[in-house]
Each structure stands twice: as C-alpha cells, then as structure tokens.
C-alpha cells in the first residue's frame, strides 16, 4: 500500500495527481472466508481492521449492500465524546477516546480529529446537580469533566442567549474538554483502506439475501453475488438490523427509527465547541467549512426512509434558536436523514447470539459514530476469541431478560418519555 505523507503528496504533484493507487480494491467474492462482516459502515470496517491488526485474521469479507460511506457513517454529526455516568458506557467510550487520539497515525489517514470540547448546558439548579453527579462519576473513571457556572459558560459561548426573561435560562454546564469532532468520511475511508491493505475483501453492492444455519451453527451466507461458506458472521448493519434478524428468525429489543441532521450555509468561525441544549434535544458544532452542523430528536415513528419530515426539523431548530438566537438569521444548506437502530434502553448490544458463529453489533441509537473504533475493537475481539471482552460485557443481549438494563438516559425508542 502506498503510504500517505508530505513526500508522496509532492511526488504525485509532479504527475498531476493522476497516479495515486486506488484506496481499496473491488474484489469478486470468494467461495469461502474465515469471517464475514455484514455491513460496510464505520463499525463493520473498524471490526475488519481490528480482526486483521489485533487478531491476525485476514481472510475476511465485508459485505455491503450499498457503498462505503453511504450509510450512517456519512450521515452523522461527527461528535466524539465519553461523557457517560455508568461504568459500562464510560469505560467503553473512554477506551474509544484513546483510539480516536491515535487514529490518524494508526490509519495513516488524516481523520481531522478535533478535541474541541463538548458542553452540555444546564437550565435549572436540579440539572446542575445532575451534571455535578455525572461529572464526578466521569472523573472517577478517569474522564475529564468540568462543571461550569453561568459566567464561565458565557465566556466560552457568548453567542448563546444569556438575556433576562428567557424561557430556559442558562445556569451553567458540564464540559468534557477532550471531546470533539472528526471528519466522518475520512474515518470510513481510512479504515477501509487499511483493512483492504491487510487482505480484507470489501465487497460493495452486494446484498445479503439469507443465511445457511444448520443445527444451530452458521454454515454460510447467501448474497446477491453468490453463496459464501463461512463459520463466523458479524452483523453490523445499524438500521437494517431488524431486517436481517427477521431472516434469522430472531426478534430483537431494537426498533428502526429516523434521525435527521442539517447544516446551515457556511459562516465565519463563531463556535469552537460542541454545545448541547439541556432543556430539549439539540446539538450543534461548526464544521471546518464554516457550516453549523445541527441535529436533535428522532422523527418519532418506525421508519426506514432515509429522509425526514419537516415537523421534527422545525421542532429541533426551534430549540436551537432558543439556545442561540443568531441561528434564525442563517439559511439552511442541507438536511438529511439516517435510520437508527434504537435499542430499548438506549445502550448498544455487542454480543454472541444463540446461533453459534453469529455475532451481533447493534442498538447504537444516537451515538454510533463516536463508538466506531471501540465498537470495532471489542467486536473483533468477541468474534476472534468467541467471547466478549470486559469492555463490552455490559452490552450483552441478555440484559433485557434479566432486567440489568443499561439505562444511561433510559430513553430508547420512546423519545416522548423525556
């Protein structure tokens, strides 16, 4: 594989950048693999990468119905954070933060990781108490957290509404300074390129049509480009989890919902943090191009349409304008939607299943992008060793049976509960 560096950039400049290698190949599926990962999104690509890198398993195929970077890995709002209270979430996410910090070097691909900090705004005394508790829990788990008062928040984001008589006055906020953003496409491409270079077959435009299961064991997978013999399958298909689970006669504690995001026209630098509204569900950051990147609630009903409806967008942006009134002056550049695998307790599932050789990775709700490296790393471990790692032990499927829910926010699919 060609190494990307200043020297290769200069060298290729002499030939007008016409001689760069393809970042990854377009192979024809083989008859048999050691592991097949279904879903070529961020998590699937990362899983294949860590299977090769950490476990030396390279006879791997990634099967993707669409194209690399066309799903949620290219549709999110690029936020990376580990500001969780519960140990299972906090330790998993913080492990991921370490991977994020090294990612550009590890992948030899600039993912533009920008640890600019995230601020969750508080709008009441009670919310300040909740944030103090969460901040303390984070620090006990070795995650940086700072509780900010109103004046400290005003210094960092003076453009927020600090006027008198607002409906949701800003009392303060909880900041994780090491949180941030990264360029999501680069994450997909970086993982794809490295996985490919280590021998992983990335097979695009290939739909899974069925599974060969015999006496409770995985024997193979049927696809639109032929049948493949395989003993281990990793399911990493986010919003399509229920469709494939149905082919396996499984019913999961997951519903597929629609989540929208949008960007404004690009403006000069105004916001150098990620900020979330505490009296509703709205988050915002400014991209390197200057667009304000915004998102919020689910549309609220089961949906596989990768496009949204106006009422939710209006609701979400109303929250944004309540928080930062200058947003009302901006024109909207783009809006889009993606389909989320919403688990019932709001936390993900990375686990084995009752079918031998079938591994499940789903339920990422609003937080799939930031989990990409940690999810891939732990899922690769779970597949390679046929046992869960302690980092994803809390993300087991059985918790819905035993009642040990991981209810960080306790929302899941029922957004109206909040």
């Amino acid at each position, binding site marked *: 594989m060609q190494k990307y560096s200043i020297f290769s950039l200069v060298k290729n400049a002499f030939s007008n950048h016409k001689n760069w290698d393809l970042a990854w190949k377009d192979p024809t599926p083989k008859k048999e693999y050691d592991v097949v990962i279904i879903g070529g999104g961020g998590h699937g690509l990362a899983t294949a990468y860590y299977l090769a890198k950490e476990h030396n398993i390279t006879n791997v195929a990634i099967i993707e119905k669409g194209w690399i970077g066309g799903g949620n890995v290219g549709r999110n709002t690029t936020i990376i954070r580990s500001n969780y209270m519960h140990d299972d979430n906090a330790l998993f996410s913080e492990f991921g933060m370490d991977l994020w910090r090294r990612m550009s070097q590890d992948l030899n691909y600039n993912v533009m990781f920008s640890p600019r900090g995230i601020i969750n705004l508080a709008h009441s005394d009670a919310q300040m108490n909740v944030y103090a508790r969460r901040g303390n829990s984070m620090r006990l788990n070795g995650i940086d957290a700072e509780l900010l008062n109103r004046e400290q928040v005003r210094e960092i984001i003076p453009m927020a509404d600090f006027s008198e008589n607002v409906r949701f006055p800003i009392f303060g906020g909880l900041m994780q300074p090491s949180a941030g953003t990264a360029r999501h496409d680069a994450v997909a491409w970086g993982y794809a390129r490295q996985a490919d270079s280590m021998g992983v077959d990335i097979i695009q435009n290939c739909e899974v049509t069925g599974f060969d299961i015999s006496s409770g064991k995985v024997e193979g997978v049927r696809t639109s480009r032929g049948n493949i013999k395989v003993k281990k399958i990793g399911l990493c298909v986010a919003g399509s989890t229920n469709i494939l689970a149905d082919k396996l006669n499984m019913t999961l*504690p997951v519903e597929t919902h629609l989540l929208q995001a949008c960007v404004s026209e690009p403006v000069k630098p105004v916001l150098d943090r990620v900020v979330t509204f505490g009296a509703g569900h709205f988050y915002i950051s400014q991209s390197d191009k200057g667009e304000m990147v915004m998102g919020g609630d689910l549309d609220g009903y089961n949906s596989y349409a990768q496009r949204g409806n106006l009422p939710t967008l209006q609701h979400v942006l109303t929250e944004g304008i309540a928080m930062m009134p200058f947003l009302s002056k901006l024109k909207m550049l783009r809006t889009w939607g993606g389909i989320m695998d919403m688990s*019932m307790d709001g936390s993900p599932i990375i686990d084995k299943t009752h079918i031998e050789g079938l591994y499940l990775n789903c339920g990422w709700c609003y937080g799939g992008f930031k989990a990409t490296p940690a999810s891939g790393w732990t899922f690769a471990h779970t597949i390679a060793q046929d046992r869960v790692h302690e980092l994803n032990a809390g993300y087991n499927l059985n918790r819905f049976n035993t009642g040990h829910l991981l209810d960080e926010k306790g929302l899941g699919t029922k957004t109206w509960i909040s």
Partner: protein
Amino acid sequence: MLHIKCPHCGMRSQNEFSYGGDATVKRPELNKEVSDQDWNNFVYNRKSLRGKHLELWQHLSGCRQWIKVERDTATHEIFRTFKANEDNS
C-alpha cells in the same frame, strides 16, 4: 408532513398526533403463568420491519383517542386507519 385520517375527526396533520408503536403487540393475559420470554417479547422485542406496519397513534391535540394506522415504514404511505377497537383484518 404525514396526513393521518383520524377515524373520529377526519384528515389531520401529523403535528396533532403522538406515536404509540407497534399495534400488534399483545399484553400477556393476567392471572396466568407468564414466562420471562413472554414478558420480554411484550416489553422489549419488536419486529420493526420494512414495509407495511400496523401501529398505534394518539390524536393527542384532537379527540385524544388512540387509533390504529396501517403505514409503510419505507415510503411513509398511509393505507388505512381504524378505531382502536375496530377489526383491522
């Protein structure tokens, strides 16, 4: 914007409604032994398939009645609506 025909009030916009999820889920019968798996299926597990989906909506800002809506989860097309106690076969 979805337009949902409330069987009580007629065609109204989505803003007036609140979503209640899969309408085919049945609560296990009371006064009978219910297995953990049955409860699990009732409380958590959902098919959530692509295509035709029978679901509950409440006409929250209207007549406040719960209704059943047959809707396509891929195209958002609404085929039929029913009163909550109406046969939907």
